[in-house]
């Protein structure tokens, strides 16, 4: 038995990435990181800002995501996200830009605790890659 399953990452503009030889994906789910292996139970969850790690036969890849929803079903993992960046060819300026807007957002007075939590997370992750 192979230990591989298929993964598809889509953002609104296009299908970002599609792979058939994934062995494990670690996603920053809202209530903590989840590692998904083959034959995981069907799951729907949403993501907080963080790093997606993809382990496959061809190596390991990491991506930064802003938010997202994952659905795992019949050994197909779909990740929907509005913003995704490959950590390999990431643009420092772009990161700084996102960081700045997040900081601005954080300084607004009318945000609730959940938003604040998400923004804090975002900044932390961004700082760690920058």
């Amino acid at each position, binding site marked *: 038995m192979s230990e591989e399953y298929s993964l*598809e990452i*889509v*953002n*609104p*503009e*296009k*299908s970002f990435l599609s792979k058939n030889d994934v062995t494990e994906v670690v996603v920053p*789910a*809202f*209530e903590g990181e*989840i590692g998904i292996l083959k034959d995981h*139970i*069907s*799951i*729907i*969850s*949403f993501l907080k800002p963080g790093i997606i790690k993809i382990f496959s036969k061809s190596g390991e890849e990491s991506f930064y995501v802003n*938010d997202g*929803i994952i*659905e795992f*079903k019949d050994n197909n993992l*779909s990740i*929907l996200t*509005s913003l995704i960046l490959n950590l390999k060819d990431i643009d420092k300026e772009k990161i700084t830009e996102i960081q700045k807007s997040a900081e601005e957002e954080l300084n607004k007075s009318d945000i609730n605790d959940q938003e604040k939590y998400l923004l804090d997370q975002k900044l932390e992750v961004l700082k760690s890659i920058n």
Partner: protein
Amino acid sequence: MASLDDLKKRISSVKSTQKITKAMKMVAAAKLRRAQESAEKGRPYSDKMNNIIINLSNGISDIDNAPKLLSGTGEDKVHLCVVMTSDRGLCGGFNTNIIKKAKLYFQKILDEGKTLKIITVGTKGYDQLKRLYGDNIIERISFKDSKNVNYFDADKVGKIVIEKFDKKEFDVCAIFYNQFKNVITQIPQEQQIIPLKTSEKEENSSEDNYEFEPEEDEILSNLLPKNISTQIFKAMLENSASEQGSRMSAMDNATRNAGEMVDKLTIEYNRSRQAAITKELIEIISGAESL
């Protein structure tokens, strides 16, 4: 009959118009390809989003406590219409078709004594609606500056809609846009996004037992606002493909008409030139004869 000089001027003016329409057609054709591509590429996202939502809403046991975005406010008094049009003209019936469709809906709403609120996306829609429904327009949005349709613009519109919904400013929300079928046909669409219609439950999305993390309700209440932005984004993509398609065929027609006009004017020009020559000849001959 117009003088030879006038005809000449008209011919050259029609010809230069033809050049412009031809160029516009070419540009629209190139843009159409890109717009069509991105509309197709954008489909998986909205399809998957839709699927997940259907799966989720099937899993919800307690309908009464379902998020308001899914089930509605329970009332049907205030309608919000998001009318999406283009920012530029010269694209045939593109904008007019959307407006026509929207106006029908508006009339129905007003006849039923309900309140109507309008958000226009794109300047052309505002221009066409401001005379009749100026008081109903509560917001006008334009993305003239963004070169391509992008998700963040759609998200902005979505956030405005949701903000208004949270403030209980409306009960039902519908969006109007043109669906791209092919270059010649664009179908004006009316789509209700709040409350969400999940009547089209798919067979394959059976009662799978999903594990949810966190709870269904919480996922749904996070997902539904995103779905609204996604639907708006999809509409914007369809719209931009339709706009270019519509402009392409309109400009193609215009180019052909200009060609016909040039032919007609050229014949007229040649005829009157011939007439002038004949007249001169007759004058000379009769002058010679009288000698």
